[in-house]
């Protein structure tokens, strides 16, 4: 099969790399949200311990 012209091939290449980037960014942002939730829980636990 002959190679695609650069303008058409560029769209496919960009799409593949963007999909990967979106996947990694989504994963890291979900992890960051979970970390923030764990930190909140930990702070709540520490606060509840202080009056004792």
């Amino acid at each position: 099969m002959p190679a695609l012209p650069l303008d058409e091939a560029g769209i496919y290449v960009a799409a593949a790399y963007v999909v990967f980037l979106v996947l990694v960014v989504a994963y890291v942002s979900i992890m960051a949200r979970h970390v923030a939730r764990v930190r909140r829980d930990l702070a709540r636990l520490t606060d509840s311990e202080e009056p004792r």
Partner: protein
Amino acid sequence: MTRINNHLGAAAAAALGIAYGLVFFYAPIEADQGFVQKIFYLHVPLGIVTLCGFMAGGVMAMKFLRTGDRRWDMRSYVAIHLSLILAVGVLVTGSIWARASWGHWWVWSEPMLVSFLIVFLLYCCYQPLRFSIEDPDRQARVACTFAVVAAAFVPFNFAAVRMANAVTHPRVLGATGGQMPGSMRLTFLVCLGAMALLYLALWRLEFERKSVAFAVRALRRSRERAPERLPQPAIPISRPPAVAMER
């Protein structure tokens, strides 16, 4: 969370930057496929790292079954969870490449594509199986047994496909892969290393996040059960307690 994680994340980002710099500014444009072949430097390392992640998950599960140490179960869970997410990337990038090269989003007669889809669907069963069991010990045992069996299937499946006659999908690594020019080979190896580093960084991030979340949850439960008692000593993060894992 820890300094090692920050360093690993920075190293992975730098390695990926270098790798994709090489892809677009150093590696030559392939004569047959043209510019579309640049997807190769993303798709193939992603596929290799994903399959290795599934197998690593199996090895860690085996360690749990041998030692009974819950940390190995959690490590195995994180490896499989991360590999499953990356496998989505492999399928999507492969599909885009297939559309650009062959004119089809998917070719059902191609053993390499179908075998990867089978592996992906097999591992899609891991989480529903795991979270359908409430008892923490039984959950870990069943999930690890599944992980070991599924991991054994991955290389077997890969070898069977390599022995089959390819229809359209190229066999990059192996006898014909030796014909890759030096600049392409170097770029590919750098991309593979960068992808492995990214996997390691993400794996550590999720593992530590889960470990801390487990420790916090166990602490909260111990408080709820015995509110009148004095505060319990902090549960070591490195040894997660026997509580059922949540998503």
